[in-house]
C-alpha cells in the first residue's frame, strides 16, 4: 500500500485514559512539540478531581485535548480527529467527541471482559454499542507491545507499564508526521539528574510506537499540519496560571514593590501559588496560609506594610474571603484577588470550568462594597490581565478582583514573548507631605478619589486604618452624612477607573442587527463561531469585555448600536443580567451553558444564527 502524507489545515487530538495513564503528559508533550514546530495551538486538559480515581471506571477518565493548526488556533476544538482511548472507560466517556471521520486508537489489552463491564458496556462490541464502528478503528495491543519493547530494559513491570503513554505518543507522532527529536530532548532533560536510567527505555518505547504505527497496515495515510506564519519573534508555550503568576511578578518589577502572595491550595488555582513559590529570586514571598481567610488577611497585612499583595483562589475560597474583601475596600488598600473559577456551587465539580462566580465577584459582600472586576480571556492574556489588575490596585488604592477560569488556568497556548520595556511603570500614590495640622489624613483624596498611601516606617505619618467607618482624617465616625460621603467616594473611586482602561473595540460594523458579547475565557470559542457564521454570509458584530466593573466608557453606545445583543457565557446569564441593570434600554438576550465544560463552537454558531 502506498503511503501518502496529506496536508490538513488543523487537527484535534484527544488523549484519554485512566488518571494514572500519563495522558496529561502525552498530550502536553504533543502540544509543546507542535508549538515549537510553529503550529497554532490550544489545549484543554479535562481531568477528574481524584488523583487516582477507581481504576477502569468512567469517573476516573482523564483527558487532554490538543488542537493544532497551520494558522492561529483560538479554541481546543469541539470534536477530535484522533481519539486515543487507553481503556474501555476512556472510550465510553469520549466517543461522543469524535468527528464522523475520526480515527480511534485503543489499547486492545485493556478491552477485556472485566474492563468492558467496569466501563459499563453491556455487549462485547463497545464500538457498535457506542455507534462508532464505522470510524477508522485501530485496535493495538499497546500494553503487550510496551512490555515486549522493554523486556530487556531492566525495568520492573510497574515501571514498564508506565511507559504505555510513550508508546501511544510514538504512534500519534507517526500519524501526524511529527519528528521525535523534541520529545527525546525533553526526556533527556527530565530524567538527566534523578533517573538517567529511564532515558533510554523511554526513547526506545517511543521509537517502537512510532515504528509500529508505520508498519501497521491500518494507517494508510498520515497527516501533516504545516507551521503557521506567526509574527517574528521569540515564542514560548504558557498556561494561564503560569501567565497569571508571571504577570504579577512583572507588576512587582514595574512598581518596585516586593510581591507577597498569601494563599491556600485550591483547585484549579494552586499552580499560581506554586509558580510564585519558585520565583523567590525575583523577591516574591509566598505564604501558604492555614486557610483561605488567612490567605487574604496575610495579604492585606502585607499590603498595609507596603508590598504588592496578592491572594489566589477559586469560588469556594472566594466565599471564605468575603469579609476580608470588605476590610480591604474599607481600609482602601491595594490588593489583587485572583479567582480561577470552577464549577459550583459549593465544592461543585472542582476540575471543571465555569464562569459562575461573576455575581459573587460583583456583589458578594456586605454593605456598599465596590471593587474593580476584570477578566482574562486566554491563557497568555492572563499575563496582561494580572499586570493590569495590579496596576489598577496600586494606582487606585483598591482591591481588584481578577477572574480567570479553570479552562484558562490549565489551558496553554504559544505566546510571543513580550519585552518588559513595553510595559508601563506603575506609580502608587505614596504620601509625601503632611497637611497643615501635621497629621496624615488616610482618606483625603485626589481628583480621581484616590487616597494617599503612607506605609508603616514613614516617620510622622502614623495613622490607623480598619473596618470601622471613618472620616477623611481617619477618625472613627458614625455621622450619617459622613457615611454617605465615604460610601459615595469609594464608589466614585472605582468608577473613575473607567478613565484609565481602553474602550471596547467592536469586531465588525458598529451598528447592525446582532452584536455577540462575551467576557473572559469564552473569547476563543466566540471568535471562532463568529468567523464561521460570517463565512456563511451571516452579518454579525462581536465585542469582548476584559473589564467588567467598571465597564468601558463606550459600552452603552456600543450596545445601543444593535437591535439585539446576545450575551454568551458559561453561567445562567449573570453578565447579561448585569448589563440589563446598567443599560435597561439595550435589548439583551442570554445564551448560557452550565455543564462544567467550555462552549462548543457549533453550539455558538447555532445560537448566533438563530438571532441573526
Amino acid at each position, binding site marked *: 500500500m502506498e503511503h501518502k502524507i496529506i496536508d490538513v489545515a488543523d487537527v484535534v487530538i484527544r488523549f484519554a485514559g485512566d488518571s494514572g495513564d500519563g495522558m496529561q503528559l502525552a498530550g502536553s508533550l504533543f502540544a509543546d512539540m507542535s508549538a515549537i514546530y510553529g503550529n497554532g495551538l490550544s489545549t484543554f486538559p479535562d481531568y477528574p478531581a481524584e488523583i487516582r480515581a477507581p481504576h477502569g471506571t468512567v469517573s476516573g477518565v482523564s483527558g487532554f485535548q490538543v488542537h493544532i493548526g497551520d494558522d492561529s488556533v483560538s479554541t481546543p476544538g469541539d470534536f477530535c480527529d484522533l481519539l486515543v482511548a487507553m481503556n474501555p472507560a476512556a472510550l465510553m466517556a469520549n466517543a461522543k467527541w469524535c468527528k464522523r471521520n475520526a480515527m480511534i486508537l485503543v489499547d486492545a489489552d485493556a478491552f477485556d471482559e472485566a474492563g468492558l463491564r467496569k466501563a459499563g458496556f453491556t455487549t462485547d462490541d463497545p464500538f457498535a454499542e457506542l455507534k462508532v464502528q464505522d470510524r477508522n478503528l485501530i485496535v493495538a495491543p499497546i500494553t503487550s507491545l510496551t512490555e515486549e519493547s522493554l523486556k530487556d530494559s531492566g525495568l520492573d513491570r510497574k515501571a514498564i507499564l508506565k511507559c504505555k503513554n510513550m508508546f501511544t505518543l510514538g504512534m500519534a507522532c507517526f500519524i501526524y508526521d511529527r519528528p521525535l527529536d523534541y520529545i527525546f530532548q525533553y526526556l533527556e532533560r527530565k530524567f538527566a539528574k534523578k533517573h538517567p536510567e529511564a532515558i533510554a527505555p523511554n526513547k526506545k518505547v517511543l521509537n517502537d510506537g512510532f515504528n509500529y504505527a508505520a508498519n501497521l497496515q491500518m494507517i494508510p495515510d498520515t497527516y501533516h499540519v504545516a507551521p503557521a506564519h506567526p509574527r517574528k519573534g521569540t515564542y514560548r508555550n504558557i498556561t494561564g496560571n503560569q501567565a497569571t503568576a508571571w504577570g504579577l511578578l512583572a507588576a512587582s518589577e514595574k512598581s518596585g514593590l516586593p510581591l507577597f502572595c498569601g494563599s491556600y491550595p485550591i483547585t484549579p488555582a494552586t499552580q499560581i501559588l506554586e509558580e510564585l513559590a519558585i520565583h523567590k529570586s525575583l523577591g516574591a514571598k509566598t*505564604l501558604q496560609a492555614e486557610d483561605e481567610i488567612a490567605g487574604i488577611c496575610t495579604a492585606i497585612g502585607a499590603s*498595609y506594610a507596603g508590598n504588592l*499583595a496578592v491572594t489566589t483562589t477559586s469560588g469556594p475560597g472566594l466565599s471564605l474571603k468575603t469579609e476580608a474583601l470588605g476590610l480591604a475596600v474599607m481600609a482602601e488598600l491595594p490588593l489583587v484577588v485572583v479567582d480561577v473559577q470552577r464549577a459550583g456551587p459549593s465544592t461543585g465539580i472542582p476540575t471543571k470550568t465555569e464562569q459562575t462566580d461573576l455575581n459573587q465577584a460583583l456583589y458578594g459582600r456586605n454593605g456598599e462594597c465596590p471593587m474593580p472586576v476584570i477578566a482574562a480571556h486566554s491563557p497568555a492574556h492572563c499575563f496582561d490581565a494580572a499586570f493590569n489588575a495590579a496596576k489598577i490596585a496600586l494606582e487606585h488604592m483598591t482591591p481588584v478582583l481578577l477572574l480567570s477560569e479553570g479552562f484558562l488556568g490549565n489551558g496553554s497556548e504559544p505566546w510571543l514573548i513580550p519585552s518588559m520595556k513595553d510595559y508601563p511603570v506603575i506609580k502608587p500614590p505614596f504620601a509625601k507631605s503632611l497637611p497643615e495640622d501635621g497629621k496624615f489624613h488616610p482618606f483625603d483624596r485626589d481628583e480621581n478619589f484616590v487616597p494617599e498611601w503612607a506605609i508603616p516606617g514613614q516617620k510622622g505619618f502614623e495613622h490607623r486604618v480598619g473596618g470601622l467607618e471613618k472620616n477623611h482624617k481617619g477618625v472613627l465616625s458614625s455621622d450619617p452624612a459622613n457615611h454617605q460621603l465615604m460610601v459615595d467616594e469609594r464608589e466614585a473611586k472605582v468608577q473613575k477607573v473607567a478613565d484609565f482602561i481602553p474602550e471596547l473595540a467592536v469586531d465588525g460594523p458598529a451598528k447592525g442587527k446582532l452584536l455577540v458579547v462575551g467576557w473572559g475565557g469564552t473569547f476563543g470559542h466566540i471568535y471562532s463561531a463568529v468567523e464561521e457564521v460570517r463565512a456563511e454570509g451571516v452579518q454579525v458584530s462581536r465585542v469582548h469585555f476584559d473589564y467588567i466593573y467598571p465597564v468601558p466608557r463606550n459600552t452603552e453606545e456600543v450596545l445601543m448600536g444593535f437591535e439585539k445583543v446576545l450575551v454568551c457565557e458559561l453561567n445562567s446569564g449573570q453578565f447579561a443580567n448585569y448589563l440589563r441593570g446598567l443599560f435597561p434600554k439595550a435589548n439583551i438576550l442570554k445564551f448560557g451553558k452550565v455543564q462544567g465544560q467550555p462552549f462548543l463552537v457549533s453550539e455558538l454558531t447555532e445560537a448566533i444564527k438563530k438571532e441573526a
Partner: protein
Amino acid sequence: MATLSFKDFKSDQEVRWCPGCGDHAVLASLQRALPKVSQALSYEKERYVVVSGIGCSSRLPYYMDTYGFHSIHGRATAISTGIKVANPWLTVWQACGDGDALAIGGNHFIHAIRRNIDINIILFNNQIYGLTKGQYSPTSKFGAITKTSPYGTVEHPFNPGSLVLGAKGTFFARSLDVELKLNEEIMTAAALHDGCSVMEMLTNCVIFNDGAHKQLSDPALKADNTIVLRHGERMIFGKDRDKGLIFDGKKLRVVHIGEGGFTEEDILIHDAHTDNIGIHMALADMKGPDYPVALGVIRDVRDITYDDGVRDQVKDVMQKSKIHSVDELLHSGSTWEVE
C-alpha cells in the same frame, strides 16, 4: 535618637472603654513599656504597628499614636503575620480578646505560634464577650451563667497557656490588668524575645463578668493564690513567702517551707529558657484551690522565626538563581524563534 516617653504613644482619641474596665490598665502598661523597649532596642516610633481584631480590647490601636490596623473579628493574627513577613523591620504588637483569638480566630492563633512568627500578642482574657454584651467565651469557666448560658455552660474552657505551649510556643507570659509593674516587665520581655510572644492578660469586665479574677487580684488573697515566676528565682509565694513548688517525681506540689522537712533549698528554681516544655506546661496549667496561678514569664526560648526564615530563603535563592528580571524569566526554559 530622641528618647520616647509615655506621651509619645498616647493618641488624641478619647478612650471609650467603660470606667473600671481592666483594659485601661493594660493600655497604660503598654504605653509605659514601649518607651523602655525603644530605648533598649533603639527603635523609632514609626517602627511600631499595633494590630487588633474585633471586640472591646481591639479598640486599643486607636488609642496608641503609632501605625495601627483595627481589622476584623479573629483575623488580627493573620494580618500581623502578613505585616511582619512583608517587612520584618517593623515591630508588630497585637491586641485581641479571648473570643477574638481563641474562638473565631483560634486557627490563626495556633498557626502563628507554630510558625514562630516574631509578633507580640496581648491576649485580653476577661472570660466573656463584652462588646456583644455578655455571652460566654471559650475561656468562661465550666457552668458559667451568661446571657447565652442561662442555666450554665456545659463546655470546658481553654487554658490559653496550654494552647500556646501545646502549639510549641516559644514565649508565654501571664499577668493581671492591675499588676502594672509586672505587665511592663512581661511586655518588655516579650519585645526582647525573638519569636511569637503571647502575653495572657487576665482582665476584669466590670459590666458583664465583674470579679472573674477576684481570687487573683484581691490584695488580701493574691499573695496566696498567685505566684510570680522569674527566671533564675525560686518558686516561692504566699503572704509570708513561706510556700513553694517542688517536683515530687510525678507532678508539681505545693509545700510549706520549714514543714515536713522542706527547706528553701528544695524549692524549684524557675528556668524560663529550658527546652523542657513539660515543666512550663505544668506551671501554666496550675489553678486554685490546690495551686497558685502562675504569673510572669513562664516560657522564653529561642528558635528559628518564620519571618527570618522567609527573608533568608529569598536572599539565598536570589544569590543562587540565574533569573534576576522578568525579561530573564520570560525567556527561561523552552522557547523558539520565528524568523
